[in-house]
């Protein structure tokens, strides 16, 4: 892997953090959503990150992989529903209320989601800095020739 490969690793992290921010934004937007196309209240979404798996490769690529340091990027493996039960509030006038007058709201804490969003933004910034550092390294290397 050369320095351009390092750029790819940080770029994969940028994609992953973008998706995390996306899911968090969705959670924030739907914090009070009581009805969904699938029925029931909105379920809080959680992203699961995974180390990038090598794609289809031929034997030469497999062999060359043993030479490098097994550096890998990150991908979003899946987005899962939060398991926690919905919050029930007594609102008999609400159209989504059940027979007892209770409405199920998603178990989303906006403050928690905001912290998550800040985490994603910081991690994104971090990886942009890493890309810039790698870029500077490549530029410096090219200066050897002059």
């Amino acid at each position, binding site marked *: 892997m050369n320095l*351009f490969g390092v*750029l*790819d690793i940080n*770029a994969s992290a*940028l*994609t992953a953090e*973008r998706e995390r921010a996306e899911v968090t934004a969705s959670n924030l937007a739907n914090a009070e959503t009581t009805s969904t196309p699938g029925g029931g209240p909105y379920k809080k979404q959680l992203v699961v990150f995974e180390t990038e798996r090598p794609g289809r490769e031929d034997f030469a690529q497999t062999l060359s992989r043993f030479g490098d340091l097994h550096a890998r990027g990150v991908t979003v493996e899946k987005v899962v529903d939060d398991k926690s039960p919905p919050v029930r509030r007594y609102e008999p006038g609400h159209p989504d209320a059940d027979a007892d007058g209770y409405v199920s709201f998603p178990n989303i804490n906006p403050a928690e989601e905001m912290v998550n969003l800040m985490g994603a933004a910081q991690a994104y910034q971090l990886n*942009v800095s890493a*890309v810039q550092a790698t*870029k500077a390294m*490549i*530029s410096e290397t*090219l200066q050897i*020739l*002059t």
Partner: protein
Amino acid sequence: MGNTISGLPQIDWANVQLDVRQPSPDRTDFFQTLENAMDKVQEAQAGADQQVAGVLQGNGQDLHTAMVAVEKADLTFQMMMQVRNKIVQAYQTISQMQF
């Protein structure tokens, strides 16, 4: 003093084997390599171009992927320029040789 001056032996030019090496056709010379490198640069630039166009047209292209592609194209171009400078420098050194 029986030293006589004799002429140089006649050279049979018809049977002289000159050791001229023909480059074998499957050998890639340096300029071939350079040409391939320039193709790579072109490829990187075309890729970056396409991605930036994708971002500007708003068809869901990731912004950072386009940015990284542009940077990669820039750096490959700079690398090619450095190699080119080095070659020109070497050529000038040779052409200014004094005999």
